[in-house]
């Protein structure tokens, strides 16, 4: 019961505060609600779908993330297996490096 009262009190307090603030503030007029374009006007709403071109970033993420994912268990095995595990990791990294080199050629590291 006490918990409910506390919740009810804070809810009422926040609603009262929000109402008081909304009355204090000047009401936004229609020209103020329009986007500011230095006196110009838009043809359409500003809500638009654009592509953030994640594919190159995804390639890079997979190249590095797969590397790290494999390296943690490998670090444990490396202690017992030694040079053999080292060679295996070398092969794995080489294959991944091809992906990174491909990404480089595609301009993954260039921010656009």
């Amino acid at each position, binding site marked *: 019961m006490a918990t409910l009262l506390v919740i009810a009190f804070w809810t009422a307090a926040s609603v009262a505060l929000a109402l008081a603030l909304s009355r204090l503030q000047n009401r936004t007029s229609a020209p*103020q*609600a329009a986007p500011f374009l230095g006196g110009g*006007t838009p043809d*359409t709403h500003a809500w638009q*779908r654009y592509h953030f071109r994640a594919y190159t970033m995804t390639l890079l993420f997979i190249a590095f993330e797969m590397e790290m994912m494999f390296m943690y268990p490998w670090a444990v095995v490396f202690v017992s297996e030694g040079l053999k595990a080292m060679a295996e990791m070398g092969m794995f990294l080489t294959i991944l490096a091809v992906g990174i080199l491909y990404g480089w050629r595609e301009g993954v590291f260039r921010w656009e």
Partner: protein
Amino acid sequence: MSWLARLAAGAPAPVYPVIGEGAQPRVERLFASAALERAQSPRAAALLLVSGNIPEAHREALDRVHDQVPRPRLGLHWEGDDGIEERLLDAWRTLCAGATGDADRLPDEPPNPWEGEGDFGQGGEGMMGGVPYGRPMAMTGEDVRDGLELDRYTARVGPFAPMLPPGLVLEVTLQGDVIVACDVLSPPYPQPEDADDPALCAARMLRLLGLPGPADRLIRGGAAHAIGARRAIPRGLGRLENAGDARMRFADALRGRNGGAADGIFDTLIGLEWSEAALALASVTPSALRQAALEVA
């Protein structure tokens, strides 16, 4: 006047300048003062400073900007007479003391009223077919970079946009913030020769780069001391025949030299991001830009 209002009145006065014909250099010099703050949008301002002649065709745009300054607001006219800084500070103190300020000039009605039709009151059928508040949604078009079908946003920017030269009205179509189409609807206002002063030209670019401090120092006659500002301008931006790129023109302006003609500058804007386009336009002198705009408008 409460202690809070007194404290606010002591702060730099936030002013949005509306620059008309022949007023650009004097307004730019005025805002090198530490007592005034040049607001980046009317929303951040309390005072509207109208300087120089505003053509009749741009009166409505002026009224729109005036109404976009939140209440309480005050508008002032300045024709180059002395004592403007004191007038602005007086107006700012008056507002802080509780003055009601200027009334709205445009009717308080939405430009596109609510239609009240459709499943969600969007005024039409389907997800994209509606015209919420009587204004259509953006429709798709081919992207200039890779041909993906993405939404296009078309708007007219100016004549009082802070990032564009005063008077210039551009009809731009954007995909994300990349310009895919750009038309000049109105050329920049004629300005006195003084506006081509290399210090003012470099200061405009510094301001766009987000460095108002070095810009003010330059206008006051000192050195910019803006380390790395030149390198912040992308290489090859706004490259023109016989006039180099924006980075080179900025370096020249810092050395006190002015660039030449700006023919073809508007063609270089396609494919640029909005911020880069503003920088490219600011990299040429106002007189050269007006000449280039008159040729394509």
